[in-house]
């Protein structure tokens, strides 16, 4: 009994202070993977049934819709490519380096619940696919968070709304830089330490600034929705709503930010598939 209690305390200290326990945690995670797989199974099978039992008509409709969407996206992409070359040319003129085109990989969420007091999700890709700690994840509409734990088969990601998460952002309109912090509510981010006189309005788009080197610059994060300027306070109270569907997404994109040199993480191994 006393031995076990001491063992638990030692484990907790080791886990909290240093990260010596990664291999131990990996071994445990392989052990519990069947349980997670079992819990994920019902929602997985419902998805499968929905797909295989869908009527021909609805499939055709979906196909049509996707074709139109793809056409639109392709048209936009053409524009984007010419803009990209123009941008690179202009940046070359300015003598600053710029890298576009990151490697991505699609991961699926395992539908299991983690600690309700933390905003974390479990993904079905792990170190076998080259996922690393600190890797940013996004969905179709914005940044979702970053990877905090990697095991061979799964990875845990912390969402940007977790109370212990902060992401460097800038206002897309004028480049005003700030940090967006999670406050523990899945719907809100807070922007502390912005002076009352700063040029920021409701409806402003916040994008990642790339400072800190963890998130690549230019991804949309949130939109400012609530703004209180109290002359008696030193800073304005600003709240923004995350753009990503944090509690609804089933699939997320893992991004390899490339070797920009400012990163402490090891470069991703070449095993993962490249961006389409």
């Amino acid at each position, binding site marked *: 009994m006393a031995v076990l209690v001491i063992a638990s305390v030692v484990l*907790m200290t080791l886990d909290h202070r240093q990260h010596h326990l990664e291999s131990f945690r990996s071994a445990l995670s392989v052990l519990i993977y069947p*349980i*997670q797989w079992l819990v994920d199974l019902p929602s997985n099978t419902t998805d499968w049934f929905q797909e295989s039992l869908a009527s021909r008509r609805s499939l055709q409709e979906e196909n049509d819709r996707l074709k139109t969407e793809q056409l639109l996206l392709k048209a936009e992409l053409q524009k984007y490519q010419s803009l990209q070359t123009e941008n690179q040319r202009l940046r070359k003129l300015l003598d600053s380096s710029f890298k576009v085109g990151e490697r991505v990989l699609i991961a699926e969420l395992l539908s299991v619940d983690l600690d309700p007091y933390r905003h974390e999700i479990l993904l079905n890709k792990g170190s076998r696919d080259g996922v690393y700690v600190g890797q940013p994840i996004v969905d179709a509409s914005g940044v979702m968070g970053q990877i905090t734990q990697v095991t061979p088969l799964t990875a845990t990601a912390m969402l940007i709304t977790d109370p212990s998460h902060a992401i460097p952002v800038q206002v897309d309109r004028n480049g005003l830089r700030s940090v967006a912090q999670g406050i523990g509510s899945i719907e809100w981010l807070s922007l502390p330490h912005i002076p009352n006189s700063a040029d920021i309005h409701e409806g402003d788009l916040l994008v990642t600034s790339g400072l800190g080197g963890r998130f690549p610059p230019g991804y949309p994060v949130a939109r400012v929705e609530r703004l209180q300027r109290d002359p008696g306070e030193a800073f304005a109270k600003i709240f923004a709503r995350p753009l990503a569907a944090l509690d609804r997404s089933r699939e997320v994109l893992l991004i390899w930010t490339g070797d920009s040199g400012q990163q402490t993480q090891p470069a991703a191994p070449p095993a993962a598939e490249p961006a389409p």
Partner: protein
Amino acid sequence: MSALTERHSGSLILGTLLLALVLSIVPLPDTLRYARPDWALLVLLYWNLHLPDRVGVGAAWLVGLLQDALVGSLLGQHALAYTLCAYIAVKLHQRLRLYPLWQQAISISVLLALAQLLFLWINGILGRPVNITLYWLPTLLGMLIWPLLAFVLRFLQRST
């Protein structure tokens, strides 16, 4: 107890504990997430009371460790709480087993509260905020569920 029934009860113990672990990560709607009772601890305590020679402090530690890995908490947090609760339950099993179910439920709720209190302390040390108004809901629900759980498990135990 013959070897056959022993093996039977062994698979029953393992099965119920696994089911409890599954229940502790099954996705729930957001409003119910904070109310999830500590299934693993409840089932563990039942076996601690009824088969203390087979499910003791060591088993509790292992289940706690698995629970830690499952919910992504600090490694050892659940292990510590489960070990302490199991220790008390095994020490008092002869007395607790004689109580009527409602009285047992109250004693069990004290143990559940002890575990919750430990988690609160650990989270406090780590500086992780918790929603304090809903924090004791799992304990309360666990207490209400205990008579039912004990009834079902006893039925399963008798029928094997």
